[in-house]
């Protein structure tokens, strides 16, 4: 009976050495490994494996490192992973609160602020544009001097398919009045030594 148990424990240790032991059996294997027989069995299995991989490691450990490590570790604080009670996630979070509720609140606040900023800008620009528009209308209606010359724009068509040249009679009047202050070129009249080219000649050649 004891022999069978011992055999089972050693086989579990062999499987643990290969990382193939079932999770449920690990505690039992570690308990066996904590005994002298278990530790020596583990050492032998590791020695056999090392020698098979490299004859260079075919020597017994020459120092008692384990005792020193064990004594030092006993002074260290142990990992507390298992001592912390696991709280169900839903209970810890609260009944009606979503996981991203705080983020959602911030998003709502940011959205409201954006809408308010856009509305304020739009309203102020609307007010500004309206005032400028009305002022512009008043300026046109009240400030523009009444001209004695006709204000209609004269359109002249040079010929078939030729572009339309638009001339404002007021511009002609202004240029005629200030002829003495400007050059001929400024009156858009070609100089005498330049050949005059216009659309009517081009169309006549055609």
């Amino acid at each position, binding site marked *: 009976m004891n022999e069978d148990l011992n055999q089972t424990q050693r086989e579990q240790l*062999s499987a*643990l050495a290969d*990382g*193939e032991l079932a999770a449920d059996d690990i505690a039992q294997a570690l308990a066996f490994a904590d005994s002298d027989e278990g*530790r020596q069995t583990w050492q032998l*299995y*590791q020695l056999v494996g090392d020698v098979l*991989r490299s004859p*260079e490691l075919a020597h017994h*450990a020459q120092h008692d490192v384990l005792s020193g490590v064990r004594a030092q570790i006993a002074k260290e604080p142990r990992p507390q992973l298992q001592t912390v009670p696991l709280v169900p996630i839903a209970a810890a979070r609260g009944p009606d609160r979503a996981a991203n509720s705080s983020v959602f609140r911030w998003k709502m606040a940011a959205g409201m602020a954006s809408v308010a900023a856009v509305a304020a800008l739009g309203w102020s620009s609307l007010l500004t544009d309206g005032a400028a528009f009305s002022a512009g209308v008043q300026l046109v209606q009240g400030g523009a001097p009444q001209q004695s010359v006709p204000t209609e724009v004269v359109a002249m068509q040079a010929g078939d398919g030729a572009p339309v040249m638009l001339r404002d009679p007021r511009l002609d009047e202004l240029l005629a009045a200030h002829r003495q202050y400007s050059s001929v070129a400024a009156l858009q009249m070609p100089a005498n030594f330049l050949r005059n080219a216009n659309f009517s000649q081009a169309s006549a050649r055609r």
Partner: protein
Amino acid sequence: MTPRIRTVMRDTRPAPNDSMNPSVTPPSTSDSDLQLVERTNAGDQRAFELLVIKYQRRIERLIARMVRDTDQVQDIAQETFIRAYRALHQFRGEAQFYTWLYRIAVNTAKKALLDMKRNPVVSESALRSQSDEDETSHLGQELTTDETPETVLAAQEIAQAVNAAMQALPEELRQAVTLREIEGLSYEEISAAMGCPIGTVRSRIFRAREAISARVKPMLENQTGKRW
């Protein structure tokens, strides 16, 4: 009838004199360590002790090659494992455990060497190894300072015993333990290769280890002078 291996496996055996190099560790070794690492992180110190036993010889040999003071080897090895224990929660399993441990050992040994330079209190063994190196430098190139002709002979005897035990194994046991220990295959892969259930693979590997251990055990008792 002896089962035949169906596939030709890759040769992952380490080159001679390269056993400390973490890159030559069999691929699935990391998996076997992960169970123990997780268990240690869960608060079971016994699991970490198994890792210490497993890697002590390799780490000691690595340190002995860097530090020529044999008195320092044990201390640096111990410091290496303590540092590893403290930092074990940072080990994510992305690399093999031995690769991670190897880096800690190298850094610990380098720090010890720097400390020795700053505080040059030379121990007797360091002086002894220094004089040995001067007088018989050819020996110093072949052996680390903690190796003596006796320990080398003892290691050769163990290696021969293991090889003899392997040769004496039934074919299916030898194949199973070879695929596991040398090729680094998992039980599932060995099961597929040998065409037998995983439980049978586990049993064959165990029986092979037991048979080899039985040959080595009396030898260790003679060498260490204590009962195994």
